[in-house]
């Protein structure tokens, strides 16, 4: 077990953990946290697999991809949080209705 695989496994773990939490929690703030954890998991996989083994240079392309991803994630989070506040104002609850509107 070396660093690369260790962090990659942690990344996969975070991804699935976030996925699980996203599906079981109903509060929207928690869903947003879960999405962010999932995102961190994906980023970790992306960079961990690019980590250098013994003195070689790390591949900078995944690093740049992750920085892009982090900015996209914060944008999406900001939008989602503002939407949560609006949903709360309109419906009184920070949750989605259980059944989709028919």
């Amino acid at each position: 077990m070396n660093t690369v695989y260790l962090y990659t496994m942690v990344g996969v773990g975070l991804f699935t953990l976030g996925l699980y939490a996203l599906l079981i929690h109903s509060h929207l703030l928690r869903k947003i946290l879960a999405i962010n954890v999932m995102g961190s998991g994906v980023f970790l996989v992306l960079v961990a697999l690019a980590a250098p083994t013994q003195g070689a240079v790390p591949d900078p392309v995944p690093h740049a991809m992750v920085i892009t991803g982090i900015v996209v994630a914060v944008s999406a989070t900001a939008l989602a949080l503002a939407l949560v506040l609006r949903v709360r104002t309109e419906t009184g609850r920070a949750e989605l209705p259980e059944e989709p509107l028919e």
Partner: protein
Amino acid sequence: MFITMQEFPWAVIIIVLPLSGAMLSFLFPRWVKLLGVLVALSVVAAVVGLGWQVVEQGAQRYAIGGWGAPLGIDLYADGLSLLMLIVTALVCLGVSVYSTGYFNRAYFRRSKANYFWPLWMFLWAALNALFLSSDIFNLYVTLELLGLSAVALVALAGGADALTSAMRYLLVSLLGSLFYLLGVALLYHSFGSLDIVILSQQVEPSPAVWASVGLISIGLLLKTALFPMHFWLPPAHTSAPAPVSALLSALVVKASFYILLRMWLEIFPVGGTALGQLLGLLGSIAILWGGIQALRQTRLKMLIAYSTVAQLGYLFLAFPLGSYIAWKAVLFLLLSHALAKTAMFMAAGNILHFGGHDRIKDFDHVVQYQPLTSAAFALAGASIMGLPPSGGFIGKWLLLEAAIHSGQWWLVIIIIMGGLLAAAYVFKVIGYAFTQSRVSHQTRRVPVHMEWTALVLALAAILLGLAAPWPLALMDIGLPFGEGAAG
């Protein structure tokens, strides 16, 4: 100055124009409508320019920054992306004209109306960038741009329904993107490239490739709303403002399908495999389920939204067939559905605007008061049902031909049943359009150009059928679907 017409980078212009339009309309809210229409017209012109290039010189590849794949990002335009761009341009031009009437002060608060334009132009820029991109990570960024702008546009309608469905849509969209991105990570680390063409040359089956097939497919199918992952679509498409519903149903769901199609055609050929059969099965269920649900709806926009679920099902029938004709049929269906569905949602918007509601049973002499809108709905309905000579007819005909050719008779039955269901729900609406309502409603004048736009787009869906050979020939440029003889 220094560049000839032959190498003018139309592809870049097509992306930069709506992007700049979005920024300008954010800066100068006073001029939004003028800017919207101007940008729409100039993008159409740029698409014509690119089309001319592609027809004259074949598929185009453009290295942004001059680096070229795999280091840089390439834009790529072949027949497939060109047709997507053309239909996007047509629909968006329509939406642009329609929205000058729809987002007026009587109906929307001005501050809200002003936000529509930049958001919508961001969406258009995202669509154009997506159809032109040849880089799977760049596709992720365009997907996010597309998803976030679509969500903001849905929420523009305000009210509890629109906001909750926008929220659900946002979560689904982000989830889909993350699945896609993880798939991209695995592909990159397997082959060290992000370019679709390079990947297609190097790809060979391995567990990582299969995992990324699964992740990318799940992510994009979620965004494309294939049954049973369609749950988010009807509420979102129903509660959005009418031009936004049109954009979502006509183009946004197709964008993720387009990526799926590209990946499956070029990177992982799954046509005809077990996975393809599964997708065909899900598509078939979507056709039947969406059709039945559409028939059960009491509100017009909900009916149209479920019809989208059903029509999206057709797109997946090509996967069990996997033949040259099947791909072309599906693309043809996609194009005609985009035009017809835009017209339908616009017609629904007109009816809603006029009577203040879209309860089908309470329609009051719609045909008499809004003849153009009724005609638009009927013509679009004809294309959705697949009546000759509409675009929908040609698409379904080709699909039937492909199904019969490969002897998969169950698909033939599904296609015919789907058509019958579509006929049932379209006629249900048209039937009520002639009746008188017992309840009298306050009515509002609908600007004439909103009615005409719907009609023109519906006519375009019909004309697509009459001019079928032309788009079918375009599809072969760059051979996205392989050699015709091989199929």
